[in-house]
């Protein structure tokens, strides 16, 4: 749903525009669909209580993504502290159930990538998730995180360098 700037928009308009990207971002931080739904709901409820102070739908989108990202990272930090190893194990990705060699490799790769992303420092993980899952450009990411575009560019690059190092991409199959 495309809502132009300067036009009046409803809460539903914001929801339709932002929810898909919000859910992807939160899900890829939390890796739990149910909790991701709850956190997205929480972010929208907070937005609902605050929306009168935001000038336009773009600002609303950035605000929502920022809030949801923080909620997700805080939740994750709390859960990691509480559950420790059990949670970390859960975060490593789906268990490999397929006998088929092709699927096995694919699942291993997915698990490896998830694990590698999770091991990134928060500031690098944030920009990468916003870029790759949020499908946001550098300018948008800069506005959400309150940093410069150049900073976003550097962080994305450094995140990829670290990811490459963690994955040791020489052995990885690309599909």
């Amino acid at each position, binding site marked *: 749903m495309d809502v132009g700037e300067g036009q009046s928009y409803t809460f539903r308009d914001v929801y339709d525009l932002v929810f898909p990207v919000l859910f*992807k971002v939160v899900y890829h931080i939390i890796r739990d669909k149910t909790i991701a739904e709850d956190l997205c709901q929480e972010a929208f409820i907070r937005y609902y209580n605050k929306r009168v102070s935001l000038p336009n739908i773009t600002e609303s989108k950035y605000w929502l993504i920022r809030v949801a990202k923080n909620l997700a990272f805080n939740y994750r930090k709390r859960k990691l502290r509480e559950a420790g190893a059990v949670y970390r194990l859960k975060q490593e990705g789906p268990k490999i159930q397929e006998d088929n060699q092709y699927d096995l490799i694919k699942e291993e790769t997915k698990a490896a*990538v998830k694990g590698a992303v999770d091991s990134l420092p928060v500031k690098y993980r944030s920009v990468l998730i916003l870029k*790759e899952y949020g499908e946001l450009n550098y300018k948008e990411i800069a506005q959400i995180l309150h940093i410069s575009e150049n900073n976003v*560019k550097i962080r994305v690059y450094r995140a990829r*360098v670290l990811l490459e190092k963690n994955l040791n991409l020489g052995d990885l199959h*690309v599909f």
Partner: protein
Amino acid sequence: MCFKGQTLSAYVDGEIDVSQCTEIEVHLELCDGCRKKVDLLNSLKGQFKSLGEDIDSFTSEAIWTRITHSTSPGKGLGFWHRGFIISPSLMLTFSFLFIAVLGVGLFFTIPRDTSFQLTSDTSGSLFNTENFPLEIPIDNVEKILSYFDIHDEPLEIFIQLPSTSDFFIQGEPLFLKKNDYIAGR
């Protein structure tokens, strides 16, 4: 001249302006090193695509329903225990109150032995201030500890002197070591 890694990363993300883009593409045809870097960056991006989670419209509508339900006036929350938002300061206040109540409750429930039995002394005339004979049983240290807990006041010995005669002051009251007294005499 080769491009910086972050420039190639931005190129892969489509964040480079048109003129620089052309420059990079020309360079990539000539430079194996930079082409390999770009291939690697693209493969990384490809990995993310494989992890993508699709949102079905059912999920989206379900969450919308929950949101509208919770933001409608007078209606309760679907996940009510989650929806009860507590500010950190309120939570901290509740925590301290909880601990204080627990502490007070524990303090007043600590049992105290008030039924300490005392026995009489046999030498001289020995009375406590209420004229009851008393003695501290001191056969074991546990009872001493218990006694001190109950009777946290000076240990008093009250002696009734024989009324045979009056007493007179002889000199200044005096404390001294017995050996010094004997030596002095």
